[in-house]
């Protein structure tokens, strides 16, 4: 599945499982957060991705 900030493009080319990433310059990060908080953000996104992999919903 795909984690990206540019969802319209992913949808257009037909990506089936997508998760909205946190921006273009740090799609699974957050430069404004503390390192701990950032890891949480990243983990959350990855968990969403893993959830999507276990689901048959688009």
């Amino acid at each position, binding site marked *: *599945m*795909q*984690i*990206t*900030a*540019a969802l319209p493009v*992913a949808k*257009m*080319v*037909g*990506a*089936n*499982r997508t998760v909205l*990433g946190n921006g*273009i*310059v*740090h*799609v*699974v*990060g*957050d*430069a404004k957060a503390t390192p701990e908080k*950032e*890891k949480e953000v*990243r*983990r959350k*996104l*990855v*968990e969403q*991705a*893993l959830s999507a*992999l*276990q*689901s*048959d919903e*688009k």
Partner: protein
Amino acid sequence: MRIVHYLNQFFGGLGGEERAGTPLEVREGALGPGKLLEQLLGGDAKVVTTLICGDNHAVENQDAMVADAIEKVRQAEADLFVAGPCFQAGRYGMAAGALCSAVQSKLSIPVITGMADENPGADLYREFLYIVDSGTNAARMREVFMTMANLARKMMSKTPIGSPKEEGYLTRGLIRDQFVEKTAGERLVDMVLAKVKGELFESEMVPTAFAPVPMPPSIKDLTKAKIMLITDGGLVPKGNPDKIQGSVATRWGSYSIDGCDDLKGEDYEISHGGYDPQFVHQDPDRLVPLDVMRQLEKEGVIGELYDEFLSTSGLANPLSNTRRMGREMAAKAKQLGIDAIILTST
């Protein structure tokens, strides 16, 4: 002008479906519709050889048949290769397309064919060839040959070829630039006025619909799943050992994360010109979430994280590259028994 003409079993006068298994045959001179072609081209145009092949044989033995045909075209010292026209006949169209394509690239002589827009051969080959729009009605053979003859003459005299509409060929789906009278600003105002007044206008570009990708079934047991990470953000080891290009990348690489818990900025660089790389430089996990994936692996949430990540650059990358690379990566993943991929994109 020496011409070699390809016909299927029907137009070649051998018979109908029952002769569709006929292997490639060679005849001297023009046959059937080929005589009309000679006439319309006029001058010193002569069909020196006609090649006939059954539609089934052509499809089932395409490579061998094409190689054989190329030899015959070479031996005939042809200046021009013509196939069909095929109208709606799908197997015929596929064969004609494959032949024209191969003759064009291997022998560098002009090639021309004709098909209906819906012919599967048109879909596969329109980008590489001039395929005259023959429509589906074989009774229009004469008009179709005339259009083919005109185009053939232009190709032989290296006269620039006009638009699909002007010249009667199927849109190839290619772009070439031209300088025009009006600036983009003027064209924008012209077009918006036409549109808002409900008048007809011709857009300079048309969006393409992408064929839907079937959805692979979901993972039933994540704790047993083998997961691979891929990125198109251009993250590569320092030194870019595979020399992956920052834009219009034609290559991708696989990079070891074996025994690694955390990606360090000093070990990597970014080959991608389309985004500000400073945040990923500081911490590459912001692009390829290795640290979190490793945690999840240790916790048993996922079965296994594959010990390499795949990487390329998606910047300004045309579909002709990305489709191929995607297929190659998928093939590798399949071979390794990967159950799922997480692709992180900029």
